[in-house]
């Protein structure tokens, strides 16, 4: 890692129903624009943005997935290596909110157990068409141990905050993990206990 021009590398995967604004969120964050009518995402798209937080360079690998059912097996294959998942719904679309438990089951099944999940309610610029109240979403996020944030990719509300806060959280998580690992590891040849019990440890 230290060989490259960044201090941390994180993978973030965006999931959620088609049309909730995942692609717009990613484009807003990585390119600073709100793309006009670009059509539904095919498979997965991949973008990189390097940000600096407190003097440290953080490379964010952002995977934007297609929401349609027929791409599910492709998108699922990315869950496991994700450090964070951004589960997105559309606040003006009750249906997209009602599908969240289904997405959570996917996460449960395929993602790393240490993955950080953020629930995002997008399109707050369309406040007059809101179908899901903030309180309801917050309560739901609370029961599922998720962070919750409302955004507008169109008006650029909270988009920067979403990714930067996530990066901060990932850094502190990574630091904590490094600490735990250092305490655990014993020199080879001095092995006191067999440590390869934790096979799937977080990298």
């Amino acid at each position, binding site marked *: 890692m230290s060989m490259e021009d960044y201090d941390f590398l994180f993978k973030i995967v965006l999931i959620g129903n088609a049309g909730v604004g995942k692609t717009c969120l990613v484009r807003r964050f990585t390119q600073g624009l709100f793309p006009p009518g670009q*059509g539904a995402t*095919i498979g*997965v798209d991949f973008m990189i943005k390097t940000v600096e937080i407190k003097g440290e360079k953080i490379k964010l*690998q952002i995977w934007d997935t297609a929401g349609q059912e*027929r791409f599910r*097996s492709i998108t699922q294959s990315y869950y496991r290596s994700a450090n964070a998942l951004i589960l997105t719904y559309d606040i003006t679309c009750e249906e997209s909110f009602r599908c969240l438990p289904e997405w959570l089951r996917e996460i449960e099944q395929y993602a790393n157990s240490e993955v950080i999940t953020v629930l995002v309610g997008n399109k707050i610029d369309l406040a007059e068409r809101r179908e899901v109240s903030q309180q309801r979403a917050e309560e739901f996020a609370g029961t599922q141990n998720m962070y919750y944030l409302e955004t507008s990719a169109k008006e650029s509300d909270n988009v920067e905050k979403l990714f930067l806060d996530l990066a901060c959280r990932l850094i502190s998580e990574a630091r904590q993990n490094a600490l735990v690992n250092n305490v655990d590891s*014993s020199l*080879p*040849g001095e092995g006191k206990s067999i440590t390869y019990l934790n*096979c799937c440890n977080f990298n």
Partner: protein
Amino acid sequence: MANSLGFQGDGGSVLSMEHVRSLTDLQDLKEAYERLCAEEKDVESELLTLLGQQTIVEKKMLALQRMGPNLQLIEGDAQQLSGMITFTCNLAENVSSKVRQLDLAKSRLYQAIQRADDILDLKFCMDGVQTAMKNEDYEQAAAHIHRYLCLDKSVIELSRQGKEGNIIEANLHHLQEAEQHLKVVVSEKFDAATKSGDLPQVERFFKIFPLLGLHEEGISKFSGYLCKQVAKKAEENLQLALGTEGGERRAALIFADTLTLLFEGIARIVETHQPILETYYGPGRLYMLIKHLQAECDRQVEKVVDKFVQHRDYHRKFQQVQSCMMRGSSTDKIEPRDLDPILSEVTLMSARTELYLRFIKRRVVSDFEVGDSMATEEVKQEHLQNLDKLIKHCLLSCSVQELIGYYITMEEFYMRESVNKAVAMDTCERGQLISSMVDDVFYIVKKCIGRALSSSSIDCLCAMINLSTTMLESDFREVLCNKLRMGFPATTFQDIQRGVTSAVNLMQSSLQQGKFDTKGIESNDEAKMSFLVSLNNVEVCSENIMTLKKNLENDCNKMFSQGLGGEQAKAKIDSCLSDMASVSNKFKDLLQEGLGELNSTAVKPQVKPWINLFLSVSHNIEEEEFNDYEANDPWVQQFIVNLEQLMAEFKAGLSSVIYENLTSLLTSLIAMELEKVVLKSTFSRLGGLQFDKELRSLIAYLTTVTTWTIRDKFARLTQMATILNLERVTEILDYWGPNSGPLTWRLTPAEVRQVLALRIDFRSEDIKRLRL
């Protein structure tokens, strides 16, 4: 100074009269007087210079007076010149207005000629159309109409207003009628030609449409004709496919082949008809044709895919697989091998689709490039976006995406099941360092990723790389972990040889023995072999992963060089492959853990007691004992023999890399333990010499068993031997500090004193007095 004084107001001096009057003090008066005198002197000298200049000024005045008459002459000339210029100017103005009039006249003349031409043309067209129509020379008639359509409408309007207005009006009416008539006729003739499948006639009338300004209609009609052909051929092919006997050569790929025929047919149509289209309709219109053709293609694809799903039982197989994956063993278990044909067929279908779509894209893009060469950037972008949307969201793309979606799950199942089998059937032939499952597993992974690659779908390939990474990293690594976790058992023989060392060791070994109790001594050997083989397996896995990654990189580069995928695709694959490579490191970590385990359970408990025997050999010896040791080595030779025996088993059972690793751990261990016992011993002068001999033998032996340099690991011990061999305490100074030469001391001054103190013949006061 003189100057500044000279400019002091109207001839006045620095000192005003009032000031002089007000002076009362003699001293001040004197000073004022002196200053005034000096002033006077300056003024005088200035006056002199000015007077000196008088003659020059006078001369100049004279010269000026002489110039007066000349100036009057010049003034006269200038007035004359101005008059001439005004005249010329007027003249020029006159000429240029005439030229302007001429220009106007000329352009009007041209227009008149043009209009005359146009009117003549119009007449010619009017006459021509009628004869041409009578002769059924539709090309000619259309050419006339085309000429008429290209005429300036205002010309026609003007002609109507002219003297022959009425005749023209009538003719014009005929012409318009002829135009309408021709449109109808051409359309009818085209339809008739289409019906009778008369290609030359179809093409004949296809060429006429653009002359009548009916580009879209022409393309749409022609496409309709082509689509019918596509449909007819496709239906025939599908019927043939459905009639194929199971035993026929490509029976297992028949639906992929049917799809291929469909694509090839369309590609051939494009190849054949693009030149006519471009010639008669101009560049930039291929997209329109393709759009129509793609609609037909989609209809046919739907039928083929439907039949494929139905005949291959694709959805049921998928559901079966899914339930197997969900619930583990299910009632109707699928043999992975049975999935082989269908997985191959689906990937082939996908590959053909990608190839076809790329062909279409390439063709339309280059047609747009020519057609849009003068267009604005926005128009260009819009055209390309439309094409992109057509390709991405056509039913063909969606259908194949769906098939591939199912494929990935089935391929994953195939991989997992096959890997499970390989693990279950794992065997290791005697004399082999690794067991069968490693090669088997990597063969399977390679096959599955290779098949995904053959689909030409980047997302499909990435997904399979990801799934393989997951399988290797968690499932397969877990298998190897479990094998290593069983530990390396100590044999009874070694137990006896070791003697009762410590209660802890005893407990540990009996616990480990307990695991293999039921199988007895032989299985104990097997357990040992199993452990060593697992270590080798882990190492080979980490290497194989890197090889797999490299090979995949090469394969992908080949794919890219064929024009498949862009920068985005490359970045995706790179990322997925680097994840895969990082699994290699996890296997390396596992290897280190396993080696550590082997070292601490099988090597250390044996080696430590052997080293501890050093303590039972006195190094506080005299000549006689020294000689006796010379004849009957008391420790090191047996130690070396023991090491040799201990390591022989590992040398035979471990790959050279791992064995090297283990010997490295062993040498570190020996160095560390030997240092401990040396510090617990006491030495005479000859004892020091004895130790030096022993150490040299040991290092010489260890150098032969490892390719790594071990001198470094024994540097501290070698330095301790040097100290124990000194004649006098102060002799250390010959090697210390400025005298150390190339030698880098690994012992601290305190340690040097500690070692010196091991010599019973060195006095502690001397040691204390040393200045290190």
